């Protein structure tokens, strides 16, 4: 119970901080959701409800926006999110092998989280760094020219 209360408090704090930063006008909705998503890792229902109350927007509106954008998640994410670029330039230089290795090692597929809550695996659209493909991004760290052999070493850097 304690952790649940703490979690709820963390969510409310994140909402509060985002609104303090951006204000409550409609055009700030996406920046606000982005901030909360970044801090909590996803957008829990309480967060969406609180945002809808504070911005005086229908819940359906907030939910509609949240589910439209790929980077906003309504599902809990792991402590570290691995983004894999699924675009053609990365695909043709060995991206598929990297993607398969990631799934093999973590034993999860796209858009899933490991049972210990450490890793989430998602795909992303082109990151525009096609000169160094295949590319993966873990949290904010970009890794280019990735080979399947490097993946265990890269993953070991995160606790």
């Amino acid at each position: 119970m304690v952790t649940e209360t703490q979690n709820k408090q963390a969510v409310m704090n994140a909402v509060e901080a985002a609104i303090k930063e951006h204000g409550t006008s409609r055009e700030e909705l996406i920046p606000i959701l982005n901030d909360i998503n970044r801090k909590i890792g996803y957008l829990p229902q309480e967060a969406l409800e609180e945002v809808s109350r504070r911005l005086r927007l229908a819940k359906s509106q907030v939910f509609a926006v949240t589910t439209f954008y790929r980077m906003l998640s309504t599902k809990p994410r792991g402590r570290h999110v691995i983004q894999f670029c699924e675009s053609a330039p990365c695909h043709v230089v060995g991206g598929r092998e990297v993607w398969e290795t990631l799934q093999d090692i973590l034993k999860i597929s796209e858009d899933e989280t490991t049972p210990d809550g450490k890793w989430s695996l998602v795909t992303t659209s082109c990151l525009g760094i096609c000169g160094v493909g295949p590319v993966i991004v873990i949290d904010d760290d970009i890794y280019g020219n990735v080979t399947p052999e490097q993946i265990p070493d890269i993953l070991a850097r995160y606790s």
Partner: protein
Amino acid sequence: MAFYRSHVLVSVDPGCLAKGALEVIDALHDELVAQGLVDEVQVLETSRIGDPVQYGPDMMVYPEGVHYANLSVDDIPYLVEEHFLKGRIVEKFRAKEITVADEELGAPKPKEVRIVLRNCGKIDPNNIEDYIAEGGYMALAKALSEMTPEEVIDTVLRSGLAGRGGAGFPTGKKWQFARNSSDPVKYIICNADEGDPGAFMNRRVLESDPHSVIEGMIIAAYAIGAQQGYIYCRAEYPLAVKTLNIGIQQAREFGLLGENILGSGFSFDLEVRQGAGAFVCGEETALMASIEGRRGEPRPRPPFPAVKGLFGKPTNINNVETYAVVPQIIVNGAEWYASMGTENSKGTKTFALAGDVKHTGLIEVPFGITLREIVYDVGGGIKDDKKFKAIQTGGPMGGCIPEQYLDLPVDYKSLASVGSIMGSGGMIVMDEETCMVDIARFFMEFTQDESCGKCVPCRVGTRRILEILTRICEGKGRDGDIETLEELCREISSTSLCGLGQGAPNPVASTLKYFRHEYEAHIYEKRCPAKVCRALITYEIIAGVCTGCTVCARNCPVNAISGERRQTHHIDPDICIRCGICMQVCNFNAIRIN
């Protein structure tokens, strides 16, 4: 204070210390004493000069600015005698120029003309003074002090600049529409939502030369009378967002943004808006919806943004590249810009050249250059000297152009005439080993996934096309599929709401037109001519060439290969998953695809 005629800075970073930098310093000091130069040459310790792995121990000698590298104690007496006593630079100790490979943007290749990319990689993007030193903000000063807004618009109009986001609408005309609106509140937007896979021209400009875009936007705002501007940048480009924010902050500090810019009485400010991952937001009406905090869904036009745009106000929206060339046009004049290009497309265009060419990366070429020149002169030809098959232009909504049109001069009209588009500037070169049905399927997968779902033709139609293409690639193509595809292409492009849906069938329509025989081979002969589609190929071991070395059998992930040592091996097609590993590991080229 002692006066030295020469200063030597020796690198003492950990890498150089490990390689004996301190011993080198001691030897240098001893030798200078021995030669009686110790009062003329000062030795200082400094941090890293070059990469210690490549160069250490190394030193810089001033005032000449010579970089000596890979020095050992034994080199010092000769160096001191030659350089400090006789005044001769010792070439053999000089650091070899190790060019840091810029894989995106190398030195200009033959036939390139760099206007948009001129500062990229040359100036510090986080320092506005670097940009100003290269003539930056001169155009803004000229526009604000010597030109009326109408004159600015007239100059842009006469330059022939057209929308570099891909549609090619004359920029000056767009500005005129926004200018003519009587509404006192107007907005200006920079579309930096560069979503085409493999296209990164705009990212590079934003990260390497943000002020050219900021300056172009201020000039545009002055021309149309806008007070507030937004740069809508996709969230996948965090560094571009950061660089832009630094640039905007510095421009404010220099009085180039904000109230009363350069004392002209004109006020304007800029803000960066970040997307949240939606390809369709590159469409202008969807982009504005996203800035307003809504789902990024396009709406029908008219009304065009110049009449009713952001927050219902007149809005001018241009691409990154369009704004980035505006300052150049203002400084050098409309005639200068219009002197480059063709009858209907003026100036230069950046492209991201990718695929099977020798030199991939960013290029900037004048309009009118032929596709052949781009592939063979700028791109250096096809990799491994294979045969050219097609070039795909315009991103996922573009078409595939076959060899017969290689001598086509590139401009907006000519590309449209062969069923493709200019688009934002992606260019993918494909060699003979590319299956055109597979390529069409790949692009359709992308557009189908990115369709926002608002209008039926795009939402449902792209899915039907994808299903049929997938079936054909799996060897389950049926008689009548080609005709159905053609009908779908026609209807989706004529009835979809926005550019995404209207352009989505292009990869299919163009490959159906130019590579129809490949579709027919897949459907009627169950054969993939390029040997790509897995369901339509079999791997076979050639008897007589196979030495029975067992390498293939040991590497096969599904144990589909059998055979005794020193006997010809055999692949069981029912177990084989067509992964191709056997072919890669075979040392005798004994495996072929049928």
